């Protein structure tokens, strides 16, 4: 953990790759995910409109940071746990799977991740 970021963090687990990244309660899952350093994590509008950071929450509590576009997450999908990573913050440890355009950067092997061992970044 960086000495310039002392906020307490929750562990967020990505089901597809079994990676875990730390994420503070007042930042979006996407902000935390970007610190994994995986190449190609799509950071789009970060305002819930473009839909590139779709995830499905499998376990854990999240807090909404703002509205998400129904063009990208339907009511049904939201009931199944789908949301946009830029618009939710973890309130507990979270288990998620990436969806849509987030599948691509997470479909490559862990070895290709820019950070050698993201798990060690946990507090």
């Amino acid at each position, binding site marked *: 953990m960086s000495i310039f970021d002392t906020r307490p963090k929750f562990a967020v687990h990505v089901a597809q790759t079994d990676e875990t990244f730390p994420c503070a309660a007042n930042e979006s899952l996407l902000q935390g995910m970007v610190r994994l350093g995986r190449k190609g994590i*799509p950071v789009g509008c970060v*305002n819930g409109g*473009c839909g590139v950071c779709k995830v499905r929450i499998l376990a854990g509590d999240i807090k909404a940071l703002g509205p998400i576009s129904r*063009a990208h997450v339907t009511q049904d999908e939201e009931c199944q746990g789908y949301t946009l990573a830029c618009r939710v913050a973890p309130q507990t440890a979270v288990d998620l799977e990436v969806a849509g*355009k987030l599948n691509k950067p997470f479909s490559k092997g862990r070895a290709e991740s820019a950070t050698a061992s993201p798990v060690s970044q946990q507090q």
Partner: protein
Amino acid sequence: MGVMRIGHASLKVMDMDAAVKHYENVLGLKTTMKDKAGNVYLKCWDEWDKYSLILTPSDQAGLNHVAYKVEKEAHLDELQKKIEAWGIKTVMLDEGTLPSTGRMLQFNLPSGHEMRLYATKEYVGTEVGTTNPDPWPDGLKGAGVHWLDHLLLMCEMNPEAGINTVADNTRFMTEALDFFLTEQVVVGPGGSIQAATWMARTTTPHDIAFVGGAKSGLHHIAFYLDSWNDVLKSADVMAKNKTKIDVAPTRHGITRGETIYFFDPSGNRNETFAGLGYLAQRDRPVTTWTEDQLWSGIFYHTGEAVPSFTDVYT
């Protein structure tokens, strides 16, 4: 005869208060009108018609329609015939369909985007008036943009399936609306695929642009600033307001514009830009960008690909 300039854009927003705050405090537009449906109408200080931006409450982001102003009411009837003859159905919407606005000719571009043409909108004047005007008014907020300048539409393109609505739109705009091509991007074998175009009716390098994408949508709406220094200042304004900047101040090869891209609170991309590039004329030779130099065309200094710029839109 025909189209003069871009008249307004109607955008879907997911949080109206946040959207109005953004367009007023960051861009510097002012709210001129609200209607019963909850739509908010805004204008820039240097514009003289009642509004150039409509924000409509929605559960998603994106473009409702873009409208261009034609010179005379009679042109609407003439253009209706031309558009129908080209093979596109039109509807003439009654005066008052939008407040303070005359009848509107409504149709969809080959890419599916809704376009409207109108000749009449309530005149309210610029903020400096017409008699001995100051060069700019006092009390401007944020970037203090002059006017809505153009928009870029992402247009469905799938060459393998024979779909290229960039080329279709470009042909339609040329043949039915008498726009002219200023710049284009060509890709594929021998540059056979027209993948992006910039088109004008005024003397600026683009009044509308089309870029190919997986599906049709809105890439950005752009507002005009005077100078590079104003572009820098508008970046400061965005930083102050915690606006998400997509592309920090730089220059386009295409159009030569000095630019910043950023997102409104619903994720609709905005641009503030300066530099009218060159005098766009009907007899000016068309500028062509090739596939290998495409990113220099888009971001001239780095010439490097920014995937979010082509993949992220509403």
